[in-house]
């Protein structure tokens, strides 16, 4: 039976796609929301460290699975390896309704005004595609506010003197610090830093009809057992479904965006849950499959009209893949600093985010989420035994005495860091897989060393007896966005140096939009999810308002 034509298709139900689907459907458009995964809860895998979304050695609890999915990585030496989703280099986010927002650490940051004007702030950087966004912080501010109130953020920006200007406070009070957080907060004040509680997409009080967080140890990497973590799957997606205008099709893998002979999008081809190839037509298509998969889908959508893939006339689709250069330090204290109060990360400073001497960007520094026991077994100062009795004793003695401060250092984009599709390797459905290649860092070394030294200083002031730095970039790093992947379909005013316009519309196609992390021109010195949600409101809101004015995007 033929699928009924709808007004809009949204591909991917994660941070960006979940929001976009809601914006369109509450505005009265009929929507089909495609998701390659299904609904998941904590019960599917329990509090199992080895199958979580953080430590994935035995599989990804929140998808995708090792049976059907592959990616290819090309090393700097040109070697090709085929990777499973549970292997590190795959660069997974998730595959389920809500995607990463089900199991994320839920830090909910607004970028700073400078993050949208990196070229204006820092000038041209040799060898980099560093640029300004075509929109400003002020443009996106109302969308941040919507994301905070409709999805839910606990925080108090008034404690952060470097916070971006806002019209309305965050809707929930911030979380109180755990023991580590209290020690670090006091130390930061002694050092003249400006500590504040990390904004969290988690309920510090009952909110949105869901209960208060009870501060589990297993938070980041897991779904919440009481639904206190705010993702798209328990906020905007239910609103979309309740509107009566949105149909969610789970376990459906979109393989291609279809084009007619005028170069207009007619809809998508997909494989349904039983593996049957199907077609869904629509007036508008919004792709929000995450930075790696969105680029892959556009590049796999080859036609007479778009022989190199949709939007790729100038070879920009898949370029400028970014994540963050995570850097910081560990410290061992002579008393327990661990109080089993999850998620663990509570305190931050934004003192080194922009306007540092001779450094482009910077980032926020936070105390880190709780490390579970297997993960901790890999954490040792250099020179310490990696196995044997000494290793075991270290684990026993120090598990509760170690704290970490780290942060997402802003990565300077490089054209060379790239997602394209592999000519040979295909997934279970026969679709060519994403291939990641190139190098990521330009000018990361000095900045990461600077951030790590500040983290170390902070830990020492808090009383750490032994400290060591991590994540300082030396030499050239392989491309990859990890869980913070972004940038592969960047927005811009010039179609020659960007893929989408300022509303997320693919320059060369009137009725195709992107609404996920792919749009980021630069990735900020913060975890990206709230910004991606804000872009979901920005793009979705634009489509909905144009639609209501009668624009059919032809």
């Amino acid at each position, binding site marked *: 039976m033929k699928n009924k034509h709808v007004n809009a298709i949204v591909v991917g139900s994660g941070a960006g796609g979940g929001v976009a689907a809601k914006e369109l459907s509450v505005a009265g458009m009929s929507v089909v929301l495609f998701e390659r995964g299904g609904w998941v809860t904590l019960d599917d895998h329990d509090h199992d460290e080895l199958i979580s979304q953080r430590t994935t050695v035995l599989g990804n609890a929140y998808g995708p699975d090792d049976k059907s999915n592959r990616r290819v990585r090309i090393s700097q030496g040109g070697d090709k390896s085929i990777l499973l989703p549970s292997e590190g280099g795959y660069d997974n986010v998730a595959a389920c309704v809500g995607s990463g927002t089900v199991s994320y650490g839920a830090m909910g940051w607004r970028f700073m005004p400078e993050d949208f004007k990196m070229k204006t702030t820092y000038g041209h950087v040799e060898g980099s595609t560093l640029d300004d966004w075509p929109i400003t912080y002020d443009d996106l501010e109302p969308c941040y506010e919507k994301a905070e109130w409709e999805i839910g953020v606990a925080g108090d920006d008034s404690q952060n003197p470097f916070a971006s200007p806002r019209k309305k406070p965050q809707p929930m009070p911030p979380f109180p610090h755990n023991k580590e957080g209290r020690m670090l907060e006091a130390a930061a004040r002694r050092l003249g830093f400006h500590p504040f509680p990390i904004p969290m997409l988690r309920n510090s009080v009952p909110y949105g009809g869901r209960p208060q967080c009870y501060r589990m140890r297993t938070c980041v990497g897991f779904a919440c057992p009481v639904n206190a973590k705010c993702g798209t799957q328990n906020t905007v997606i239910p609103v979309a479904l309740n509107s009566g205008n949105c149909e969610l099709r789970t376990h459906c893998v979109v393989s291609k965006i279809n084009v007619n002979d005028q170069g207009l999008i007619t809809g998508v081809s997909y494989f349904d849950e039983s*593996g049957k190839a199907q077609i869904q037509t629509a007036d508008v298509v919004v792709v929000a499959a995450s930075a790696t998969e969105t680029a892959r889908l556009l590049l796999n959508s080859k036609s007479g009209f778009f022989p190199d893939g949709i939007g790729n006339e100038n070879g920009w689709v898949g370029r400028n893949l970014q994540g963050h250069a995570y850097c910081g330090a560990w410290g061992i204290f002579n008393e327990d600093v661990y109080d089993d109060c999850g998620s663990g990360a509570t305190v931050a400073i934004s003192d080194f985010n922009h306007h540092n001497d001779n450094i482009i960007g910077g980032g926020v520094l936070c105390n880190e989420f709780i490390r579970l026991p297997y993960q901790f077994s890999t954490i040792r100062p250099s020179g310490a035994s990696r196995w044997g009795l000494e290793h075991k004793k270290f684990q026993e003695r120090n598990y509760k005495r170690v704290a970490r401060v780290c942060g997402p250092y802003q990565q300077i984009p490089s054209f060379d860091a790239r997602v394209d599709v592999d000519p040979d390797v295909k997934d279970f459905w026969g679709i060519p897989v994403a291939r990641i290649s190139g190098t990521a860092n330009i000018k990361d070394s000095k900045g990461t060393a600077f951030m790590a030294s500040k983290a170390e200083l902070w830990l020492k002031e808090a009383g750490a007896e032994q400290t060591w730095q991590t994540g300082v970039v030396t030499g050239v790093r392989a491309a990859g966005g990890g869980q913070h992947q972004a940038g592969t379909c960047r927005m811009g005013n010039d179609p020659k140096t960007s893929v989408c316009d300022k509303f997320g519309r693919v320059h060369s196609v009137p009725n195709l939009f992107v609404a996920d992390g792919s749009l980021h021109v630069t990735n900020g010195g913060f975890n990206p999810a709230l910004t991606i949600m804000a872009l979901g409101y920005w793009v979705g809101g634009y489509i909905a308002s144009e639609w209501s004015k009668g624009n059919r995007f032809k």
Partner: protein
Amino acid sequence: MERNKLSRRHFIQMSAFGVGSLLLFPQCSPQLRKSSWRFFSVEEAFLMDTIVEQIIPTDEWMGARDAGVTNFIDKQLVGPYVRFQEKYRNGLSAIQSSCHILFRKPFEELSWDEQTGFLKMMETGKLSQTLESRDPSQKGEKIWENNFDRSFFNLVCDHTMQGFYGSPRHGGNKDYVSYRMIGLDYPFTIGQNRYKS
């Protein structure tokens, strides 16, 4: 439909080729005794017990052997770690032939310190060099081609940590020993108490 079937067959061929065998390792060598293990032979399991006990030894807390780490690895090797079967089969046999060249004894019969020293040589990649100097026919070099001594040790070490510090539901970490050692309560009660209070 037809196209879909074809591509699936193609996918399986491709992945078996690219990611290492997705099928069970074809044939165990004939001399191995029938085993109650899923993948390991009785001899291999005994050797594994000896190695993992070196990696996480018994002190006032159970070591990796008694905590069931060999069982954990055996179970994963017919599950998510099917792709490592060949590495384990070759690696374990290479350990025994190297011990034979160096000590004229199997690994389990070495003293504790000799075992530690041997694993340290693997860890640092010095085992193949040592064998080469002992054995002019350069048989040792071939056993551990491409730094396999180091990579196999790293693999076993990592899997041992997973088995000892991961959830007991996978067959290791018997009686939550590592969680008790660290002082973490399982199953979770603190969070729930906090919620109720």
